[in-house]
């Protein structure tokens, strides 16, 4: 009961924050800042998809950008080939992109998920590299390294509409994924992450669970790619780059692995820091322009001092206090019992 109330409370808090965020474009009309927040929403979705793999199942992927890129290219190619892009074309492009991502993640999962974790990580890296090379070579379809420039329906050109679309997507996906992670499936995934052999000896065949979560994660990542392409109306092969995966990894680790909300916070921090360092502080010192160096340092410090990330550390702190309180209560209770006895 207590658990249920805690969950209900957090749901209301998240909904309240969502409503406050929904008001932002109506009271604050700085276009570049709104665009930055849209990017945070999109990368928040992408990072949550990564958290499903890393945080809930213990799968380390170096090729997650592959799904992001498939989503981005899927919708971009459909839009670029359409003479007059309408909402129906966007929906069709999105369905095609997500369908392809589902098939690819299913096939990639079948090929790789039986491998030990480090082999899986390397194979996903190779697969993402393959997609990058294919995107560069298939110029007729993808525009090669020049990329694809396309137009979107009027609805998406309005920054407020785009903002609200990305925000609502983030909120809906967050609650859906939270439902998944709090379901019996989610519990089995955590069990797999903690101890595969032990989970097997409880009667679970591990592979289908990994495959299911890999497909869900791939489709969500592709959806983030779709939103990304629509938001910038241009796409090139950099969406398949390993940097995109590393960003998701960093967002997840800094925000808090296995927390879902952590990666969204991580996305906010990384995207904002990226923007702030490369635009605002670039004039102060050249080092700020090389923000990757700073992020590398942040990454090392985060892993050493905050291995649980922001949300994980806060949860750990709250739990410790609870345990301490409980212990003090138990101690007092036993002292009372002794006196009474």
């Amino acid at each position, binding site marked *: 009961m*207590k*658990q249920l109330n805690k969950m209900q409370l957090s749901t209301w808090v998240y909904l309240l924050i969502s409503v406050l965020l929904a008001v932002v474009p109506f009271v604050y009309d700085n276009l570049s800042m709104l665009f930055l927040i849209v990017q945070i929403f999109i990368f928040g979705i992408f990072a949550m998809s990564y958290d499903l793999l890393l945080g809930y199942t213990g799968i380390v992927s170096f090729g997650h950008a592959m799904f992001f890129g498939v989503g981005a290219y899927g919708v971009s190619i459909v839009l670029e080939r359409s003479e007059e892009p309408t909402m129906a074309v966007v929906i069709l492009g999105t369905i095609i992109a997500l369908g392809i991502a589902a098939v690819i993640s299913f096939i990639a999962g079948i090929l790789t998920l039986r491998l030990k974790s480090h082999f899986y990580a390397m194979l996903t890296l190779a697969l993402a590299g393959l997609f990058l090379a294919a995107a560069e070579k298939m110029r007729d379809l993808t525009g090669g390294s020049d990329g694809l420039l396309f137009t979107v329906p009027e609805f998406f050109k309005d920054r407020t509409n785009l903002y609200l679309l990305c925000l609502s997507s983030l909120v809906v996906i967050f609650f859906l994924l939270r439902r998944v992670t709090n379901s*019996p499936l989610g*519990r*089995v995934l*955590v*069990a797999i*992450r*903690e*101890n595969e*052999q*032990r*989970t*097997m*000896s*409880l*009667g*679970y*065949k*591990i592979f289908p669970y990994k495959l299911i979560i890999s497909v869900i994660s791939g489709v969500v990542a592709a959806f983030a790619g779709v939103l990304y392409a629509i938001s910038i109306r241009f796409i090139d092969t950099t969406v398949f780059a390993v940097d995109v995966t590393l960003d998701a990894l960093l967002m997840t680790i800094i925000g808090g692995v*296995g927390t879902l909300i952590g990666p969204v916070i991580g996305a906010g921090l990384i995207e904002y820091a990226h923007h702030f360092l490369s635009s605002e502080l670039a004039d102060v010192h050249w080092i700020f322009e090389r923000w990757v160096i700073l992020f590398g340092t942040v990454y090392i410090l985060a892993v050493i001092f905050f291995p649980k990330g922001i949300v994980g550390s806060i949860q750990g702190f709250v*739990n410790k206090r609870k*345990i301490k309180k409980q212990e003090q209560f138990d101690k007092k209770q036993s002292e009372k019992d002794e006196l009474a006895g």
Partner: protein
Amino acid sequence: MTALLKVDQVDTFIDQFHILQNVSFDVQPGEVTVLLGRNGAGKTTTLRTIMGLNSAKSGSVMYKGEEITKLPAYQIARKGIGYVPEDQGIFGDLTVGENMRVAMQKEDDATKERMEWVLNLFPDLKTFWNKAGGQLSGGQKQMLSIARAYLNENELLLIDEPSKGLAPIIVEKVMDSIQQMKEKTTIVLVEQNFYMASQIGDTFYILDDGTTVHSGSMDELKTNEELKKKYLGIA
């Protein structure tokens, strides 16, 4: 009587090391069979081999007359063999309740009945139902691990060193619970604590250097000082 479990001339390797060499023993239904032996004798590997977590290179493991030697662990578990590993195997990030629920293969009335029985046996689990598994004490973890294995309709429980690292008072409680489970299921127990093992065991097998070297009834072993001294180091 037909053996519930028959381990026949099993050889198991871990990497290049030949751990089990021709291990054979039978487990009769309703009995507690104790595997004894010094550290490194191969007791844990024997249980892991039965469970399919280490694969036997040769020999056979038969459960209820069916060959299970090459089956994966999840299929062996579904056939009705529960496993309580040496390290307890608690999922630290899941609560006690979630640890229990994740172990339930069915949610039928019989499972609910067993859940109730096991929670009465270990009331601590009820008290700490919403506490994370990783935050439990060693004894509580052991109780949770045993409770989880008992939740399903398992006809055979493999329990590995349940007294290891526990305070004597907790050991007594754990052993008492195993004693109660004995009424309902067949048990293969690996135990270093001979006193405890002798209290609940019906038959014994001694493993030495990965081979079964002696077997018999526990009553015989209790009085055989030479055997105890030679293989168990008990003076």
